[in-house]
């Protein structure tokens, strides 16, 4: 028996022009509880549906127990699914819903009876077998949907946001029960959710997906404590994400202060992103421990802890969680442990495109023509265009804009916002701004001629 029950290689899928999954590589260990986590539209459900067999991959393969299952129709796959809105058959009662799969396999009556009763007991719904499924509450329907799937003893149980339709209290209870069920049954669970808390609570392994790509795979603690990029850090839990500079091994600068850290191997004087979790910034009264000071800006009680926003002496805003409140307006001394500073490689340091000089003084990129200095370049020549994040102007109207787009992703970086804008041409432009925008806002994009930097296309630039 192989250790990996599912092995996914180079899996890609597009709907029309839109690439929903891009070169996914993933293996699932036998018996583990693995969660596909990501915002809506990230491709996680598509991945699950391909494993179940409802969608065919464009490229790549899915191996189950070492065998490629590309050509196997869903009804022959030894997998069962718990659907998002349960999909219990309204024309059958609870018993017949659960017995559906077994009857299709021509299982003997008494065996069906035995197994249905067993799973009903497992999901604590023993007295409900004659009930009409439409008379059940959401939580009860959920249990029946799970029972209907596991009664077939699948090798892998696929769960597509199974708790999304339940209220908070019910969701918490079901989380515990699911975990317990997983332990009792010993089968592999592949779980899809957009709820990071649920993922952290339930999973052995979390796969963070965004825009069709796997961002990070790891245990809940790995993912929480050592996010590999700003997206993961922002998506999982609360965090302060800040621009920083790795001075040398184990020494990093951010919020205009220097800190000891535990990260190595980034090189010297390299730009990085830094993540500090709000519970990892500590208050102190000992001037010797103090690394920087700040003024408390707001303080809100959150049940277990207090959530405070502070303005540092260097003009950055940080979020801090602590069990003790500090009065608004007070000056506080703060420090961060080297262990609690997570340094991440910067994915990009500026916007970079390949463009074409269309005329004297204009260059085309992002599907639009921008004015700029084209001295030293010929008309028709392909050039590398570079624009710094903070040099892109966003307007709330089209009038003076050169092209337009929509805000796709917003990251607060302590003293400014880092926005991802999807332009009309479908490309992305990243922008640093102090203005407040909302997700999906329509924006006009303008860049001053002097801020567009052209370079000859060289092998190094490619």
């Amino acid at each position, binding site marked *: 028996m192989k250790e990996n029950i599912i092995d996914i290689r180079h899996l890609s899928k597009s709907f029309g022009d839109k690439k929903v999954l891009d070169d996914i590589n993933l293996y699932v260990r036998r018996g583990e509880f693995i969660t596909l986590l990501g915002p809506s539209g990230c491709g996680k459900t598509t991945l699950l549906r391909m494993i179940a067999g409802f969608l065919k991959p464009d490229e790549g393969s899915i191996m189950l127990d070492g065998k490629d299952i590309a050509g196997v129709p869903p*009804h022959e796959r030894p997998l069962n*699914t718990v*659907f998002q809105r349960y*999909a219990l*058959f309204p024309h059958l009662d609870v018993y017949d819903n659960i017995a*559906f*799969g077994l009857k*299709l396999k021509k299982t003997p009556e008494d065996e069906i009876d035995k197994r249905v009763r067993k799973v009903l007991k497992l999901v604590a719904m023993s007295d409900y077998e004659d009930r009409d499924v439409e008379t059940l509450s959401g939580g009860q329907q959920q249990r029946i949907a799970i029972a*209907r*799937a596991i009664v077939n003893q699948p090798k892998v149980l696929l769960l597509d946001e199974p708790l999304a339709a339940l209220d908070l209290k019910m969701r918490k209870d079901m989380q515990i029960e699911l975990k317990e069920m997983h332990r009792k049954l010993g089968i592999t669970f592949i779980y899809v959710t957009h709820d990071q808390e649920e993922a952290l609570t339930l999973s052995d392994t979390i796969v963070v997906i965004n825009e069709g790509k796997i961002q990070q795979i790891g245990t809940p603690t790995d993912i929480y404590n050592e996010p590999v990029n700003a997206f993961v850090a922002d998506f999982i839990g609360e965090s302060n994400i800040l621009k920083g500079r790795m001075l040398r091994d184990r020494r990093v600068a951010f919020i205009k202060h220097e800190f000891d850290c535990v990260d190595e191997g980034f090189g010297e004087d390299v730009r990085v992103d830094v993540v500090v979790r709000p519970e990892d910034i500590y208050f102190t009264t000992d001037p010797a421990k103090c690394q920087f000071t700040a003024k408390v800006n707001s303080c809100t009680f959150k049940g277990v802890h207090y959530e405070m926003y502070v303005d540092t002496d260097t003009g950055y805003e940080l979020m801090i969680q602590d069990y003790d409140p500090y009065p608004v307006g007070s000056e506080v001394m703060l420090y961060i442990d080297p262990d609690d500073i997570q340094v991440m490689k910067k994915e990009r340091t500026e916007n970079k495109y390949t463009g074409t000089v269309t005329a004297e003084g204009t260059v085309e990129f992002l599907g639009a023509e921008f004015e700029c200095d084209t001295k030293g370049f010929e008309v028709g020549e392909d050039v590398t265009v570079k624009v710094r994040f903070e040099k892109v102007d966003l307007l709330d109207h089209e009038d003076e804009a050169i092209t337009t787009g929509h805000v796709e992703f917003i990251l607060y970086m302590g003293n400014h916002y880092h926005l991802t804008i999807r332009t009309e041409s479908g490309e992305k432009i990243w922008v640093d701004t102090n203005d407040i925008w909302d997700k999906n806002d329509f924006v006009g994009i303008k860049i001053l001629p002097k801020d567009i930097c052209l370079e000859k296309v060289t092998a190094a630039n490619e």
Partner: protein
Amino acid sequence: MNKRSNWALPYFIFLVLFVVVPLLLILVYALQDASGHFTLANIGKFFSDGDSLSTFALSIEVAIENTILCILIGYPAAWILANKEYNKGAVTVVLFILPMWINALMRTLATAELFTMAGIQLGKGTLLFGMCYDYLPFMIYPIYNVLNKMDKSYAEAAQDLGATPGEVFRKVTLPLSMPGVLSGVMMVFMPTVSTFAISEFLTNNKIKLFGTIIQENINNSMWNYGAALSLIMLVIIGITTFLQGNESEENSVGGII
């Protein structure tokens, strides 16, 4: 401010006057003789008149056959139309319901002429075919509606639990589409029994259906017997409606456009 529930009042009065009272009048006239005295003779006449009885039996027979024919032809069509894999545009669906809006008499006349031109003897065969042609859209539409609105995850769940495409259809899609079939039956069966002009055209007056004898009696001023025949039809409507239950209220023609 007057209560808005009072707004139902004018329509209530209207319905009583133009629906309830007229239906009661059918009962009243059916149980009266020409001079206005109570009698059961009209009802008795129907059950002792061989011609009426055989027309009645034939009407029911034609209606059942027509309904079955409409289901056999209409269900696959509705299924294909509702299946995204085979049919992507709404235009094809419109083409299927469009004939419902064309004057039925004209269509029927044209059908009859087509038969004559093709040298086919007008009779029961042409009657059945013409009826089916007239009422097919009324069967296809409600079935299509139910299939189209059906949550796709039911079929997927069945597949996931090991059902082959054939089993998915037999055990899930078909039972779940029954409300559509039932309202299709309602929209085909009763109109077939009661039609008069259509059967006359399609058989060149050779075959009379129940609707025709009602019409002849009313037109010949035999109101009481005509009312008695109408009463019998009302009883059948009552029975079929009762059998159908309230399951498919939402699938009626109301949502065609």
